[in-house]
């Protein structure tokens, strides 16, 4: 067992603030959608708008962080061990088998995570964000009384935004559950809080890697 520093300060801040914003946006968003009732329609609209600004700022910072630190490379997808990772979640995990991939500072995501998170970052979030920005500015007037957007039907924008929202909350459920599949059920969450994670057989893992090469 070795204590490894995996999640950096900004990464943790980004993760948790994004998580809380997305949950809050989901609650207020589904209230605007008419599914639930918590704050009242007008407050829900107001909160949804303010938290969407916050999320936009956060996303801007995180994009900057990903590129300046080179962390974006973590998300380059690979098919290597993808099958065995999938196989592990479907059956290996029940038999008490070991994880087919190992975490390290340089490679903190398994191939399945890489693929899912990449999709999350380059498809899901952009769809929700862009449709959200269009929604926010739809058929509206700015200070000069010019109609900003009117060519795309609001229905299309709203449907895309809602679709993204459903995918996000489903992702959230699975994502939260998957955190319990670490070395111990709470080790992943602890790591995302402290930054450090107990990782076993790191040396073995390195040897494995060298063998493969």
């Amino acid at each position, binding site marked *: 067992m070795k204590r490894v520093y995996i999640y950096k300060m900004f990464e943790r801040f980004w993760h948790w603030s994004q998580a809380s914003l997305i949950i809050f946006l989901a609650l207020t968003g589904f209230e605007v*959608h*008419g599914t639930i009732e918590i704050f009242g*329609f007008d407050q829900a609209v107001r909160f949804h708008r303010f938290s969407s600004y916050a999320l936009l700022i956060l996303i801007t910072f995180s994009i900057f962080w990903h590129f300046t630190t080179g962390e974006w490379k973590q998300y380059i997808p690979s098919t290597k061990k993808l099958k065995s990772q999938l196989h592990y979640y479907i059956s290996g995990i029940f038999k*008490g088998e070991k994880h087919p991939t190992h975490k390290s500072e340089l490679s903190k995501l398994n191939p399945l995570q890489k693929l899912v998170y990449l999709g999350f970052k380059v498809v899901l979030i952009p769809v929700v964000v862009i449709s959200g920005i269009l929604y926010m500015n739809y058929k*509206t*007037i700015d200070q000069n009384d010019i109609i900003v957007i009117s060519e795309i039907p609001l229905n299309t924008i709203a449907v895309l935004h809602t679709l993204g929202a459903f995918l996000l909350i*489903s992702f959230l459920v*699975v994502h939260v559950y998957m955190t319990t599949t670490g070395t111990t059920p709470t080790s992943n969450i602890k790591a995302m809080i402290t930054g450090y994670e107990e990782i076993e057989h790191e040396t073995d893992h390195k040897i494995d890697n060298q063998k493969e090469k």
Partner: protein
Amino acid sequence: MNKKILIVITLVITVLVLVNVLHEEKTENLQLIELKQKFLTKSVPSVDHSKLLPLQKKFNSPQEVTEACLTCHTESHKEIMQSSHWNWERVAYIEGRGITELGKKNLLNNFCIGASSNEQSCAKCHIGFGMTDDHFDFNNAKNVDCMVCHDNSEEYQKGSSLAGYPDRNVNLTKVAQSVGNPNRGTCGYCHFNGGGGNNVKHGDLEQAISETDKEVDVHMGVNGMDMSCVDCHTAENHQIKGRLYSVSSENNNRAYCEDCHTNLPHFDDMLNRHTSKVACQTCHIPIYAKVNSTKMAWYWSEAGKLKDGKPYQEEDKEGNHDYMSIKGRFVWEKNVKPDYIWFNGTADHYIVGDTIKTIPVEMNKLYGSHDDDNSKIIPVKIHVGDQIYDKKYNTLIQPKLFSPEKGDSAYWQDFDWNLAAEAGMKRIGQPYSGEYGFVKTKMYWPLNHMVSTKENSVQCNECHTREDDGRLAKLTGFYLPGRDRNFTLDYIGGLLFIISLFGVLIHGFVRAFLVIKRNKYEVQIINNEE
């Protein structure tokens, strides 16, 4: 050390942002204060008409008053004689008809139907003297009635069925010496009482508005700004701003709320975003007919029942006539929630001679749709009913209703629809087949008055709701957040969420179960080894 500073900075920023977002500051609305100041000072006339020489005499006829007016206001009659208040018609371009002359002369409505052949009575609301029939001389300046609009003494009244002449008891000298700007009383004299009684037609314009409080009308309330009609309906050369679409057709010369309040009147950006598609009135006139009831339906087909050979009338709980032998059955309502339509400021009307195309017959058709950039959602009163039509020619009939005495084919005297139809249609030069029936009708009255205080305006969730009684529930054809959704997407999305939830729960339970079982097994092995 570095981290601690960072954490502190982040926390401080978060707290500051939250305080800023959640704290609502009471800001003074400068725009409103400016407007209030503008309308605070009532203009003092520069002329006291009671001191003018031409008015120091006893007037024997109202025409003499008009002549006296014209000695100073030498050209005013020319302006008046170009107005629709005088001509009872105006020229308009109507899509599908082209350039059309229309007005009270040739339009029908679903209240008292039409003025033609009933001028003797209907001319009570014409700004002229002596309109007894269709031979009225619209070029005779002496017949212009200045007093009905400019009387400031509350003395002036037009006589009942006197073809527009004043009541015989009116002291014309007193009226002539009092004249000034029109006020709520003079405008209301006709506009409150159209259709034969208070608040019959409009629903948002009635006698109560003359002396009311802010709760009824935020502009005219005497405990508020106490504004007059002409503060908004300004006029230049007697051409008055504002349109009523029971007789108007064109999108021009309208009086808008935005003229004073601009199209970005709210502090809240979210509310301002509504103004490109939602008229001010839609949110700010949550109910109409706040004080007295208004007529919502008029069924002419039930007219003509007599008791002992005599006409009679009945009253409803509120004291409104709900049946009159001469007019039929009515439905009155108070505190009515408006209906909502898309409207772009243009309209068409049923003009005498038109063939009936739809049932109910739309007495006025207000154009507009969501996809039209000039259209906004507006609140309207919809007045329904049925009225006489020609079964063979499929046209609405102008019946002769009024006559001072029996035996003149007038329905209100003789109760014979056939005679009334024949006489009325003959007068307007339209054919009548002799076969009449009753057809359903519908008329739209845009609501612009009885503006509520902002506290009482329509709330977000009254439209943005899935409930069937939402204010915009019937206005379909566009996506309204909070009301509309894609059912397939909501179904599949909800299903996906539930499957994910149950999926991970089952996965988790199985895992936990197997871990416990395996641990027991391992413990057994260890025990066995020992």
